[in-house]
């Protein structure tokens, strides 16, 4: 257990001290939320489309979801350096299985991105007047999304064993998830297929549905269903990562 914790602790410190992590995961979304919120607030019919949720709240949700889905990149960089590039002989010389370091790093990535997401939600509430309803649901959604993102990044890196293609594939999946979730441009949600896709069809849709329901005081069972499916998906990815890690890092 010591190996996991020492890796997680050091990777956590490294992420917090990394100015790029802070800028990309905290600075950029902090700028984007008010810009997009104020820009979209004047569009006719937007209030009816959002069914009572404020534009600023909706934009904060969308931006937080998107940046959580892209949060696996930093963890991928650390694992790539450790086992596929210049540190590989040093790290492989350690008397522990590489999966200890990979999962320790993943834990740190998870913690940092959840903290960053929570800070964003907090700041959006305090400064921009966003209303999330339940902060507990926000934390659960952040945890599920970040877990999904970290595991997706790990899976791609172990699958491709090369950072470039792995990062590109992770980006495609994350971007595709947001796009099919109706968060990049509007989809014809009056058609059942697209309605399902934008409500439950992707990790981004599930997160959005859970957050919107919580903000509107919607049904707890619907929120639990979305969060549950999100964690179930992450668990499936976790199993795949476990299997890949045993084979690819042996």
């Amino acid at each position, binding site marked *: 257990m010591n190996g996991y914790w020492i890796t997680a602790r*050091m990777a956590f410190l490294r992420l917090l*001290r*990394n100015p790029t992590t802070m800028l990309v995961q905290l600075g950029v979304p902090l700028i984007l939320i008010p810009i997009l919120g104020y820009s979209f607030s004047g569009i006719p019919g937007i209030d009816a489309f959002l069914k009572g949720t404020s534009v600023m709240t909706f934009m904060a949700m969308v931006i937080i979801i998107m940046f959580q889905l892209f949060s696996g990149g930093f963890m991928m960089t650390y694992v790539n350096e450790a086992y596929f590039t210049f*540190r590989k*002989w040093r790290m492989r010389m*350690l*008397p522990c299985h590489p999966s200890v370091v990979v999962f320790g790093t993943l834990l740190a990535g998870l913690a940092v991105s959840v903290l960053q997401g929570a800070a964003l939600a907090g700041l959006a509430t305090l400064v921009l007047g966003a209303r999330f309803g339940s902060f507990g649901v926000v934390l659960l959604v952040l945890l599920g999304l970040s877990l999904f993102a970290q595991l997706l990044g790990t899976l791609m890196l172990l699958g491709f064993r090369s950072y470039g293609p792995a990062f590109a594939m992770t980006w495609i999946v994350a971007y595709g998830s947001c796009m099919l979730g109706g968060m990049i441009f509007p989809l014809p949600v009056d058609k059942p297929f697209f309605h399902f896709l934008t409500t439950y069809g992707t990790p981004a849709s599930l997160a959005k549905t859970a957050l919107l329901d919580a903000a509107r005081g919607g049904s707890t069972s619907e929120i639990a269903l979305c969060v549950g499916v999100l964690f179930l998906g992450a668990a499936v990815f976790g199993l795949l990562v476990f299997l890949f890690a045993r084979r690819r890092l042996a």
Partner: protein
Amino acid sequence: MKIAAMRDVVKRYEGTIALDHVDLELQKGEILGLLGPNGAGKTTAIHALVGLLPVDGGAIELFEQRQHTGAMGLRRRVGLVTQEITIFEDLTARENLQFFAGLYGIKDPVRRDRIRDTLEFVGLTEHADKLTRKFSGGMKRRLNIACALVHKPELLVMDEPTVGIDPQSRNHILSAVRALRDAGTTILYTTHYMEEAQAIADRIVIMDLGHVIAQGTVDELIERIQYEERVLLEVGDPSPRLMEDLRRVAGVKEVQAQGARLTIVSQAGAENLNQLIACAQSSGGVRSIMAEKPTLEDVFLALTGKSLRDGGEK
């Protein structure tokens, strides 16, 4: 006592042979210098020895056990200083050591003591809590070594540990390596700097193109190629008569003059230095004298026909 051995080891990479029937042995408490130009197979040899690379033929023994890539237990007894600097630049020196010590399973309070001692050993105590991205190249190299030492390995494998650093840090590292040997650690030290190998190694193995081409102490290796000796004399009057007198001294093969400087080549073991000086004193006196001894560079040149310094290119 034998710590490690490679017997007839062969390692191939697609189409090329990196280790070609390599044999070497490492005795407890010695510094074995593995010398060769870039691409000689030194790094492949040490990676195979410590179990990081599978081999295609031959046998490797480490601490009297058969080595293989899955032998995790043996890794606790070995420290590897890689050619690349592998410290984490966004952590302090202390945190770097905490990380590596932690992954070797060392717990507090032993870990705290080990980290303190290791920082002191590499001369970084005063910089323990500074972020290493602010360190100089030499300090980073020293911390790189410290990370491989913190678990007190019985065998320390150092792969070109002084590449690209200032002379002061290099001297510090070489002194530290000697101190480790004196404290009982066995060291395998790879380098392409022959001065380093000559300065610290108890025995030297010379590799080129995946082959071990010679091994022994520095003196033994030099003896293998020492078929002549050179004496450089600067005289007051380099007259033709003096040249003739010098050529008549027993053992002298050749005398070359360049102004007042004379190069006298004799057969190995001629022991004619006193006669050469006596000759020169009778012709205007001797201003300076220097006897040139062959170096490992000459050994490498004699054995391979190419220079070590130029990276082994023919």
